[in-house]
């Protein structure tokens, strides 16, 4: 395969000094979409975004245009909440958009608000994002002063106010209804759905919640058109609709962290394989071999070296029983103890459960404790089954069903069950030896033929990613 290359669209000019200011941003083509966007009637705009195949970059991968058609556009006022609460472990691409290109986000917010007839947008920013918030606040002031926000956006007669709002360190506020509760001044505890935010969201009004990266794509779609956007990424022809929308258009900001030589954000067309992405990050540190890769932020089921040929897009990862999620790719080399890695994640989830649902509130610390027992060598035979069983009671990964209010439950059980199944020999060795035992790579992994994620269906990609 030809060597994979970056395709910078959102991250283009990211390192230009001063690009966070209006002047420099404009000099590099910023706000060009303002000339076009108000010429597109809202309904056509929604169709455009739907046809582009753009899927939400925050985690769920739902079609953005489809989400917009669900919005109740009869009720006033309506709100946009931009989710800038980036707290999924392994994910850090929004930070750089907010810090370096806040005007690109504002440009995207304008496009979204025009399409949905929204006049008030809130950017819910992570409390820890101090520089990012400062830069965004400054950019918003600049935009007001230049007539890009306010009573009449760029002379269009369309009014739009944008405000920032700081979170205070709770992961669950990244869930869309948790975010809404938090914005309203309450604990960030997710709401039962339905009603969906598109019908009854912020302040009980129709609300669109959209991730920073998703919104940032909009100016480029408006500017360069449908064909240009659909020319990037991969499309699958023979994938049933139930496996998700087989369209993976555009680029993705892949955040690569862990044991690679050059961690960082790589913007590539959707469909790059995990191996190619690792190569782009200059390979695994010290020439070691890969042991495990978490492909979509810490909530996604882990991949083994047998799965590194899997394209990192919504469709393929879905078929591999994992997910693209937020695009946080965590790479672990052969020195890693997979039980300790899982324990670290389970400590995270036990800390972040909002506590509303019993399976999640009690189950998550339980899973953590079993993992801890195994890691320390105090476990007994049967503990691996119990770990999988308890995790599956929070949310069942095989049937993809859960009785909790939000998807946090599946975010817990996905890593738990996938680690325990795919690295079962290493978990067993811990129990057998009564101490932490890192097995050699070949022995640590459940062979693919016994792995629940196999056999992976073979599918045809019609539009192979083109590496320019």
């Amino acid at each position, binding site marked *: 395969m030809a060597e994979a290359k970056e395709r910078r669209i959102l991250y283009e000019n990211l390192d230009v000094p001063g690009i966070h200011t209006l002047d420099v941003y404009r000099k590099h083509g910023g706000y060009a979409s303002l000339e076009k966007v108000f010429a597109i009637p809202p309904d056509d705009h929604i169709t455009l975004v739907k046809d582009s195949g753009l899927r939400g970059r925050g985690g769920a991968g739902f079609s953005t245009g489809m989400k917009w058609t669900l919005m109740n556009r009869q009720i006033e006022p309506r709100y946009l909440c931009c989710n800038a609460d*980036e*707290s*999924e*472990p*392994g*994910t*850090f691409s*929004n*930070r750089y958009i907010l810090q370096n290109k806040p005007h690109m986000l504002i440009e995207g917010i304008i496009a979204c608000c025009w399409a949905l007839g929204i006049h008030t947008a*809130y950017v819910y920013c*992570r*409390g*820890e*994002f*101090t*520089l990012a918030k400062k830069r965004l606040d400054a950019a918003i002031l600049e935009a007001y002063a230049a007539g890009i926000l306010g009573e009449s956006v760029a002379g269009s007669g369309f009014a739009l*106010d944008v*405000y920032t*709002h*700081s*979170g*205070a*360190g*709770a*992961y669950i506020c990244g869930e869309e209804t948790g975010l809404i509760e*938090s*914005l*309203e*001044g*309450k*604990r*960030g*505890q997710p709401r039962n759905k339905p009603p969906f935010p598109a019908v009854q969201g912020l*302040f009980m009004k129709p609300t669109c919640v959209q991730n920073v990266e998703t919104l940032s794509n909009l100016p480029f779609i408006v500017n360069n058109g449908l064909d240009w956007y659909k020319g990037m990424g991969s499309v699958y022809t023979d994938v049933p609709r139930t496996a998700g929308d087989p369209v993976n258009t555009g680029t993705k900001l892949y*955040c*690569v*962290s*862990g*044991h690679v030589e050059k*961690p*960082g*954000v790589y913007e590539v067309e959707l469909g790059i394989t995990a191996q190619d992405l690792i190569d782009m990050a200059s390979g695994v540190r010290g020439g070691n071999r890969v042991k495990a890769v*978490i492909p979509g932020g*810490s909530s996604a089921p882990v991949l083994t070296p047998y799965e590194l040929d899997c394209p990192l897009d919504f469709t393929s990862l879905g078929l591999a029983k994992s997910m693209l999620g937020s695009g*946080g790719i*965590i790479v*672990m080399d052969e020195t*890693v103890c997979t039980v*300790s*890695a899982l324990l*670290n*994640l389970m400590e*995270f989830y036990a*800390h*972040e459960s*909002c506590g509303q649902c019993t399976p999640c509130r009690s189950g998550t610390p339980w899973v953590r404790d079993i993992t801890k027992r195994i890691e320390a060598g105090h476990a007994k035979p049967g503990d691996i089954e119990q770990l999988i069983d308890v995790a599956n009671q929070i949310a069942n990964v095989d049937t993809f069903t859960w009785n909790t209010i939000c998807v946090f439950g599946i975010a817990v059980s996905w890593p738990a069950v996938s680690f325990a199944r795919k690295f079962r020999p290493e978990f067993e060795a811990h129990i057998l030896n009564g101490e932490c035992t890192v097995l050699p790579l070949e022995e640590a992994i459940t062979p693919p033929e016994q792995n629940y994620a196999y056999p992976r269906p073979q599918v045809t990609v019609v539009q192979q990613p083109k590496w320019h």
Partner: protein
Amino acid sequence: MPFEFTPERRAHLDDLLTHYPTKRAATLPALHLAQAQNGYISQDVMEHVAELLDLSPAQVQDVVTFYPMFFQEPVGKHIIRVCKTLPCMLCDCKKVLDHLRESLEVEVEGTTADGNFTLLEVECLAACDQAPVMMVDEDLYGNLTPEKIDEILGGITGKAAPAKAERRHGRG
């Protein structure tokens, strides 16, 4: 003396209130402002914020206890947050924490004897590409080594600003 916002902060809050259709929505911003002034969220602070936002103190407390960034007890002049989540763990964040514990002679969640630093372990700071990572007050530092940490902390104690010294609420 009961807590009250300084006139500047009060004006800032009044401006923030215009952003939302309900007063309650300003709870988090108001608490951030209060913590910046007082160092932590005391009972007084909660009562004052509740009064300004037409809420009961219990409603404010409900919020305060949910969010880890709000301190319910006095803390040091500077807050050190060390990330401990998986990507940072893979890049040896334990070493960072150990170095801080030893050189500052303080345990996690504790405050140094001189009241200068409170040491906290936190979950992913969304800067995993720079792991291991810590924040000191509002500033993020990545690719940490013991030497780098000493340099950063030295720089901070050397230039401890009098304005910040006012919010000293050390436990020591």
